[in-house]
């Protein structure tokens, strides 16, 4: 499946592994914050890359020491109106200087992509393929920005 990364369409290579599933031997995977904190060493020994999927109530501070080892952070929207993820992205980029990929996943709208991009989200995964084109277009909805931002 394709996702948007840095405004380009690219093939997705990442899989989210739920807490009750075993870790696959190969491939790029993301896990929950809880699992990351528990199985960090094991995750970093695998041959594929490792990432973390954050939910809105997760405290990003808990990742502070690990950020250089994390290739992807997914921000998982349970519902599109949960704005905590916007502050999480902003903090990861500005406070923690996180350089890796921040990807929006879950239930959110193409209409939010403009805002998300401005707080530092640079990759977007949608379950509905129609949303991908809409999201690419929505990134250009506004040419004016009143606030300083991370992008």
């Amino acid at each position, binding site marked *: 499946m394709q996702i948007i990364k840095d405004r380009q369409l690219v093939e997705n290579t990442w899989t989210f592994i739920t807490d009750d599933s075993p870790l696959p031997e190969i491939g790029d995977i993301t896990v929950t914050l809880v699992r990351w904190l528990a199985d960090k060493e094991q995750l970093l020994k695998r041959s594929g890359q490792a990432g973390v999927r954050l939910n809105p109530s997760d405290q990003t501070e808990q990742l502070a020491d690990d950020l250089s080892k994390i290739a992807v952070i997914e921000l998982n929207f349970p519902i599109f109106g949960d704005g905590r993820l*916007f502050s999480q992205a902003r903090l990861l980029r500005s406070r923690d200087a996180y350089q890796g990929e921040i990807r929006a996943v879950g239930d959110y709208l193409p209409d939010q992509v403009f*805002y998300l991009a*401005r707080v530092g989200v640079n990759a977007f995964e949608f379950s509905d393929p129609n949303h991908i084109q809409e999201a690419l277009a*929505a990134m250009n*909805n506004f040419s*004016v920005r*009143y606030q*300083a931002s991370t992008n």
Partner: protein
Amino acid sequence: MYQYNKQDQTLIEERVNEFRGQTQRFLSGELGPDQFRALRLMNGLYVQTHAPMLRVAVPYGLLSSKQLRKLASVARDYDHGYCHFTTRQNVQYNWPELNRVPDLLAELATVQMHAIQTSGNCLRNTSSDHLAGICKDEIEDPRPYCEIIRQWTTLHPEFAFLPRKFKIAVSGATHDRAAVQFHDIGVYLVKNEAGEIGFRILAGGGLGRTPIIGQTVRPFLEKQHLLSYLEAILRVYNLFGRRDNKYKARIKILVKETGLEKFTAMVEKEWLRIKDEMLLSNERIEEMKAQFAPPTYDSSASNDSSFEAHLSADASFAKWVKYNTVEHKIAGYRGVYLSLKAPDSPPGDMTDKQLEAVADLADQYSFGEIRSTHRQNLVLADVKQADLFTVWQQLDSIKLATPNIGTVTDMICCPGLDFCSLANAGSIGVAKEINEALDDLDYIHDIGDIKINMSGCMNGCAHQSVGHIGILGVDKHGEEWYQITLGGSSENEAAIGERLGPSVPKDQITATITTILDVYIKQRLEDETFLETVKRVGLEPFKERVYANH
């Protein structure tokens, strides 16, 4: 007043285009009702009892005559020929058709107006003192800071999906006319011991179901840190404000549950981290101040003698001057209130004809500017005393000169059950009935300064909990009943009204209000105001009379 530059204009036009696309996607079934709901709310569009309701932003209540004329033509072309002024100094249309709203917004954009963030769980219109720049008790004009805040809040990428709505008010005077203490963030311009002007920042105030008075999080903030401090508060709120229950989602609940000390510590920690990256330069402040420079006043305005002559010759004029005009910092000028509380029209409503006539008056007598007040009236801020008599006559001819500002018939009132899908009870009809019962101007003037606020439901759009007399519509087994509170105030000595007792049915509400007024008249000492009397004697004498037959 602030004039848009090319960037500002581009942004609102881009927002119209985005909204046009969103509306089309909804009408074609591509966007679901819930998704569209969130998107349209962020652009001021509610779906109401009869039709959508569109709320148009009037930043800090300032309007040009050109904008007023556009509001009039929109009222005519898209609505039933009128609009409604709200307690956030905004304008509402009650009858636009959904598929025409994008065109309506495009028209507003031609006069630098928009509906961005006038509803939804986002940063709302910043409100302010309607006498800003002209009142004698001002430390500094708050409007340049309001505009700086307006721009910062507009499409803020991080704070577009907050737990709940978020309102900011700024006042620059010693007398608070902007209900600053009842805002999510309240900002007072203050002078410190060294004589420097900065801000006192309050957080956690709010009305609605759980009215709470805001608390000071920072007694003095240097001007350059205004935006970083707001950002720190918003970040803490966005991350930690409750999202599990919409009735507990406002920042007032976060401040209350966290405790002021801990909340302040969280804000200060974040602020210390970001404050040096977000400095507001002196240059930017000065540029913004220049946009609000005073108009060219006539230095000989006070030489006029006709004003005094008219005052002594015409008692009606003198009465109007006493109630509907206010002192101005420039000699020979006065601020003029236009009462949108004529006895026979819904509080806060204006017709297209009235809007256009007021635009003409503003052009001719008040530098082309008009203000809206949070008590749902308008102000012509800079009228020469020599022109007051003519202005009065003209206002009288369009029913905007009822001399009742600050009196019992100058009620704040929400649209109520007649228009709003949230309401439990009517409010406009009750306001009319109270008005009819109090038709004797001498009696009204004798009662003096009293603020009645009436909301049709718990959401409290008309700020009933801070009315000197608050009236709240409740539903009792499908019937409209009204709960009464006394002693509230949204001014400096902020207070939340106390409940008088059991609610009263609709057919007794007017009699109840007149009884309360009678008790006041019997109880008051000399020139004691209603609020002072309530404070001194308490609720008991009022209860005794109101519930005498129960």
